[in-house]
């Protein structure tokens, strides 16, 4: 049960560095929190708690020492809860919980930005190189599935990266390793069963997908499209299969590359309908715009590019849409 307690003005409710699992709600009065701000050059700071507000939450739920000293600035009535009681209460007050989450995530973002300021350039290495190195680790350990994933991701994020050619080569090698099935005895058995049928590649959507990605990276779009169509035509069997989803999107990209814009529009529109929340949805909208632009339907193209501009946070795709819109304006 929560305990109600009164504190006289000037008395300390808890000290900095104390460890405790208690959360407080101020009912009446005023509480001052005193702390050293690590973010702001160890400046001494104070916060005021007013009736209705919680305090001592972070250190109690995160089970670390108090970061501040809490003092009653007037005569106070305070409700003291255990972490468990706090959780029960919070679960019933979604609004309070969401508000706290927002405050905490802002604090976290803030402190992270300070951490980053201190990390000098030579400590933060190039991301693309680092990702590539992870692939090397898996290759060395003959974990070809995982190496394949890393190299395909490398090619997805950095298609023009310095190591792209090397990644393609290694991706192909990883795939050879995969077919040999060294790292997955279960899959060897599965493949042996399938070998009696037509091509073994299409029996496993994952493998077929990687095969297609590899074809795509070698500019063999027709071959890639054939493999991807096979995966897509089989359907996702009611489950939300990762590779089915990716194949769908990739197939649209193949059509775009082959200048088959009607097909591309069809695939990307269906992709958006099926997976409106997918992180690739924005790119799909952009690609529809691009397809319309290429077949000369500029009004429709504009509509889709404008849609891109309104979707989510600004990124590379926004910039591409922006310049496509400008290009249309210039030519009109």
């Amino acid at each position: 049960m929560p305990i109600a307690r009164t504190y006289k003005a000037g008395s300390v409710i808890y000290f900095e560095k104390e460890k405790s699992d208690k959360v407080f709600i101020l009912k009446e009065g005023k509480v001052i929190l005193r702390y050293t701000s690590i973010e702001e050059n160890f400046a001494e700071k104070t916060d005021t708690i007013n009736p209705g507000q919680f305090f001592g939450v972070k250190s109690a739920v995160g089970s670390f020492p108090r970061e501040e000293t809490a003092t009653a600035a007037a005569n106070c009535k305070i409700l003291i809860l255990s972490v468990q009681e706090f959780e029960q209460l919070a679960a019933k007050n979604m609004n309070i919980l969401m508000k706290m989450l927002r405050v905490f995530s802002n604090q976290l973002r803030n402190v992270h930005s300070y951490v980053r300021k201190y990390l000098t350039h030579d400590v933060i290495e190039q991301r693309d190189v680092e990702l590539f190195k992870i692939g090397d680790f898996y290759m060395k350990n003959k974990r070809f599935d995982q190496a394949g994933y890393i190299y395909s991701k490398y090619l997805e994020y950095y298609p023009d990266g310095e190591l792209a050619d090397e990644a393609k080569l290694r991706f192909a090698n990883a795939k050879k390793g995969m077919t040999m099935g060294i790292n997955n005895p279960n899959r060897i058995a599965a493949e042996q069963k399938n070998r009696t049928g037509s091509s073994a590649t299409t029996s496993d959507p994952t493998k077929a997908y990687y095969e297609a990605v590899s074809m795509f990276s070698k500019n063999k779009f027709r071959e890639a499209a054939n493999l991807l169509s096979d995966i897509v035509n089989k359907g996702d069997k009611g489950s939300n299969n990762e590779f089915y989803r990716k194949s769908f999107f990739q197939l649209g990209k193949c059509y775009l590359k082959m200048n088959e814009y009607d097909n591309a529009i069809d695939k990307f529109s269906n992709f958006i309908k099926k997976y409106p929340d997918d992180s690739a949805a924005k790119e799909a909208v952009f690609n529809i715009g691009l397809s319309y632009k290429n077949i000369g339907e500029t009004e429709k193209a504009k509509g889709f590019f404008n849609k891109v501009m309104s979707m989510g946070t600004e990124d590379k795709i926004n910039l591409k849409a922006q310049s496509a819109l400008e290009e249309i304006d210039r030519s009109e």
Partner: protein
Amino acid sequence: MAINMLEKYGRNYRAGDIIFSEHEPGNSFYLIHSGKVIITKIVGETEKNLDILGPGDIFGEMAIIEEAPRSASALAETEVKALEFNKENFEILLKSNAAMAIKLLKVFSKRIYDARRKLMILSLLDDEAKVADTLILLAEMKGYNPNEVREFVEPIELEANNQSVSSWCGLKEDITKKILTQFVNQNRILISHNTITIKNINELIRYVSQKRKIPE
């Protein structure tokens, strides 16, 4: 879990699949519905297992905070069904799932504390002090409480090496190594394969707080 949530956000992984890799851009976070997920980090030539997570656990949550590269990898240890969310749609999930919101609140609390502690190390001006404070931090992570009064100071053995210390204190490995060697010569610590032993943590704490006081 509502069926339509599973349909809309559910993703399936086979055992061994990488859900995301360290250094990949991070845009989504996950709630495990079934199966086990292992969090790993490749340090030098070895893969370190940081955590094993199960149904109801969340991972990749930093994607809500900022678009930074992943700091660790998540791999499916068994067949896994997980719900995938991003910055735009995660509030939907939290509003319908108080337990998950509370879990996230706890994770964020801990992360804020850890980040502030790291900031305390990074804000030191002197490289030796940074390394010393990192050793203190590693002792704290093992459960050492600097506010507890003790009669004896016992040696504290840490599972750490040059690389792990270097990644915490933001110094290059060769500089970290030089300082650690210097500490060995000063009889402050002992180093053996993958362990560092602090001989007298109070001495280190005094040393660091001295350095913290004189930032000209």
